[in-house]
């Protein structure tokens, strides 16, 4: 591991620990929901990182189509996988928050439905990409798919802002009067939220870098094996 990687990893671990301590010790206990509201810091941060990953996948896809460099395809593919892991965590933590607050694990609310669609669309991206054998066709197909798939991200973001939903909007105004679990942010909550978002963004960057390196090694191996077969 190179020196800058060690510094990067160390900063990520330190910030993750700091953010977790802030969630439990610095952020105040919310009056109505109690301690379960603290899930919100993890839930929003993982959702944010997941959507950031899909944005990176989009950038990688566009860059691949422009340059045809395999590195961009590898980055895009890595970002989709990491994004799926993070979005899965956001869905699970959201469900764990919903059980005591909404009295149900799951409901087909616009926000939850659009998030599920996003999750399924990106899962299909991984499965379909792996089904294509020719590396160039696979990369081109994955790039076009990643660009189209990204449409689900703004739809998911806007679903809770434009449609009638029970999903609370903590950052920004909500048009839905049916939101359940809505709460106002105190300054300490804002500090904790900002710290969590920075920590999770760093965690995402570390996971993305690790996954990208795996993808590069995988494709290097495939290249060597193909050369061996030809020889």
């Amino acid at each position, binding site marked *: 591991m190179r020196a800058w990687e060690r510094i990067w990893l160390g900063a990520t671990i330190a910030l993750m620990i700091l953010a977790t301590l802030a969630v439990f010790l610095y952020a105040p206990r919310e009056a109505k929901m109690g301690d379960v509201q603290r899930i919100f810091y993890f839930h929003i941060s993982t959702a944010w990182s997941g959507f950031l990953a899909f944005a990176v996948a989009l950038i990688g896809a566009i860059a691949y189509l422009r340059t045809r460099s395999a590195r961009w395809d590898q980055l895009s593919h890595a970002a989709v996988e990491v994004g799926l892991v993070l979005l899965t*965590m956001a869905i699970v933590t959201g469900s764990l928050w919903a059980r005591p607050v909404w009295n149900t694990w799951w409901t087909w609310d616009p926000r939850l439905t659009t998030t599920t669609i996003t999750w399924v669309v990106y899962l299909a991206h991984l499965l379909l990409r792996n089904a294509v054998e020719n590396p160039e066709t696979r990369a081109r197909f994955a790039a076009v798919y990643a660009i189209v798939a990204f449409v689900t991200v703004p739809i998911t973001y806007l679903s809770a802002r434009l449609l009638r939903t029970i999903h609370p909007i903590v950052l920004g105004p909500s048009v839905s009067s049916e939101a359940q679990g809505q709460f106002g942010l105190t300054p300490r909550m804002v500090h904790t939220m900002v710290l969590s978002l920075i920590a999770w963004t760093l965690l995402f960057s570390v996971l993305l870098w690790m996954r990208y390196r795996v993808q590069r090694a995988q494709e290097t191996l495939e290249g060597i094996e193909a050369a061996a077969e030809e020889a």
Partner: protein
Amino acid sequence: MGYLVAAYLVFWGVTFFYVLYLLRRQRALEERIARLRARFNPEEGEERDELR
């Protein structure tokens, strides 16, 4: 409190196992690449001998 602990366990658990999975996969791939390169090296040596 139970739901809060469960959420945090899910997060740390998934992160831990995903990092472990990536590290193992990386190591396995690097070992395979090293084995393949080692297999090709003697041939490269022979080619160099022929050129001499």
